C-alpha cells in the first residue's frame, strides 16, 4: 500500500473542475515529480493532501488516514506562497516548529540557517523575498517527515537559489520518506526524480519511473513534457 493514495479524487472551484477523478498510489522512499503547466491541478492536489481544501468527490489518504491531525504530524508542507507571520523571528519560528512537530530537527535547522547567514533574531518581514523562501524551505526540510509536499519550491527564484534549494532537498530529506515536488521547471528537477507524474487539466496523463520513461520514449522527461503539453 502506498503512503499517498487517492481514489477518484475530484475537486471543483465553482463549476470549474480542477481535479477529475484522480487515482494514485505512491510508494515511500522516492522523489516524485508532479509535473504540469499552470492551472493543471498540481497545487490543488497538494492542498487536498494537506487538508486545506475539501474534495468534492473521492478521497485522498496519507498513510491510510484522511487528512487530519494524524497525517499533519507526518507531512512536511512547503506552500507555493509566503505563509510565515511577518512579525515572527527566525528563532521563534524554530521554537514554533519544534513545539508542534515532533519530527522537527532543531539542530539541523540552526546549522542550515547559520550556513545561510540568517540570524535567529531576524524577523521575516525584514528579509528579502528570496531569503524568506529559504527560511520556509529550511523549516520544512528540517523535519524528518514521512511525506514532503513541496509546491513549486524553485519557482520565482534565481538559478543559483534553485541549485541551493534542490541541494537542500536532496541532502536533508528522510530517505525512507516520499518527496513530492510540484513544478513546471522540469529541466531543473529532472535529474533528481525517481518517479514522474504528468498532470494535465485535472487528469493524470502519465505516471511512471523517470528512467523507464526516458528509456521508453527515447527522450528526456523535459522534452517529453514539452511534447505532451505543447500549446
Amino acid at each position: 500500500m502506498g503512503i499517498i493514495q487517492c481514489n477518484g479524487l475530484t475537486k471543483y472551484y465553482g463549476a470549474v473542475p480542477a481535479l477529475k477523478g484522480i487515482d494514485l498510489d505512491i510508494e515511500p522512499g522516492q522523489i516524485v515529480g508532479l509535473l504540469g503547466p499552470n492551472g493543471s491541478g498540481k497545487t490543488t492536489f497538494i492542498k487536498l493532501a494537506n487538508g486545506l481544501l475539501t474534495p468534492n468527490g473521492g478521497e485522498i489518504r496519507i498513510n491510510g488516514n484522511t487528512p487530519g491531525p494524524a497525517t499533519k504530524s507526518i507531512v512536511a508542507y512547503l506552500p507555493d506562497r509566503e505563509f510565515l507571520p511577518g512579525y515572527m523571528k527566525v528563532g521563534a519560528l524554530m521554537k514554533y516548529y519544534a513545539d508542534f512537530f515532533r519530527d522537527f530537527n532543531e539542530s539541523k535547522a540552526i546549522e542550515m540557517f547559520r550556513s545561510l547567514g540568517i540570524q535567529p533574531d531576524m524577523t521575516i518581514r525584514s528579509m528579502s523575498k528570496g531569503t524568506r523562501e529559504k527560511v520556509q524551505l529550511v523549516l520544512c526540510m528540517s523535519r524528518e517527515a514521512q511525506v514532503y509536499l513541496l509546491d513549486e519550491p524553485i519557482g520565482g527564484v534565481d538559478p543559483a537559489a534553485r541549485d541551493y534549494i534542490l541541494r537542500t532537498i536532496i541532502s536533508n530529506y528522510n530517505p525512507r520518506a516520499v518527496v513530492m515536488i510540484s513544478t513546471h521547471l522540469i529541466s531543473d528537477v529532472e535529474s533528481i526524480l525517481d518517479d514522474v507524474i504528468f498532470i494535465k487539466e485535472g487528469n493524470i496523463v502519465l505516471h511512471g519511473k523517470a528512467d523507464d520513461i526516458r528509456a521508453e520514449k527515447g527522450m528526456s522527461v523535459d522534452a517529453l513534457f514539452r511534447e505532451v503539453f505543447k500549446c
Partner: protein
Amino acid sequence: MLGKLLKYEIRAVGRIMLPLYAALLILSVVFGAVMASDQNMDMYKTIIAFTTLLLVLVFTIVAIMTLVTIVQRFNKNIYGSEGYLTLTVPASIATHIWNKTISALIWFFFSEIAGVFALVFMTVPVMGVENVGTAFEMIRKVKVDITPLDVVSIIIMAVVITGSLALRIYASISVGHLVSRAQNVCGIAVFIGFTIVEAVILNIFGLDSFTNVTMSISDNMPEVGMHVLTPQLLGPCFFALAFGAIYYVITWGIMKYRLNLQ
C-alpha cells in the same frame, strides 16, 4: 496542543494589545496627576482638555482594537496566508476553534481590567487614597448583599455571553469564506443577520437582549438586593449558551467540510 496554540495566540495578540494598555494606563496616571494638581496654573484648562481628549481616544481605541484584533486573528490566521501554517499543525478543528475562543475571552477580560485600572488611576489622585473605601461603598449602594455565588454567577455569565459573541464572529467569518468574492463584506452582513436573529428570538421569549442583561446586573441588583440567579438574567444567558453552541457547529462544519484555503 491547545495549550501550545494558546501560547502563540496570546503572544500574537499581546504584541498589539499590551502597548495599547500601556498607553491607556500611562495617560490615566497623567490625567489623574493633572486633575489633582494646582488648578490655578495658567495652562491647567488646556492640559486637562488635551489629556481628556487623549484618554477618550485611547479608551475608544482599546475597545475597538480588542474587537478588531480578535476578528483579524481569526480571519488571517485561519482563512488567510497564515492558515497555511496554522492549519497544517497536527491539531483538530475543534482545538483551533477553542484556541481562538479562549484567547478572545482572555483579551476581552484583560481589556476590561485595563479599563478598571485606568479609572482607578484617574480617580484615586483626585479623591485621595483614604476615600477609596467610601467610594466603593457608594458604588455598591450599601444595601447590596452579594454572595460568593453571585460573583461566580456573574463571572460564568460574562464568560458565556462573551464566548457566544466570539463564536458569532467566527461563524460569520466562516460563512463569509464560502463566497468567492467580497468575503469580508459577506461576513459583516452575516454577523448583522445573526445579531438580528438573536434579538428576535429573545424578544419572542420575552427576554432582554444581552446588553440589557449587563445593565440589569449593575442597575437592579444593588437597589432591590436582588441576586444574580433570576430568570430575567439567567434566561438570556441560557440562550447565549445555545447560540454559542450553534455558532460553534457552524464554524466547525465549514472548517471541516467546506474549507477552501486560497
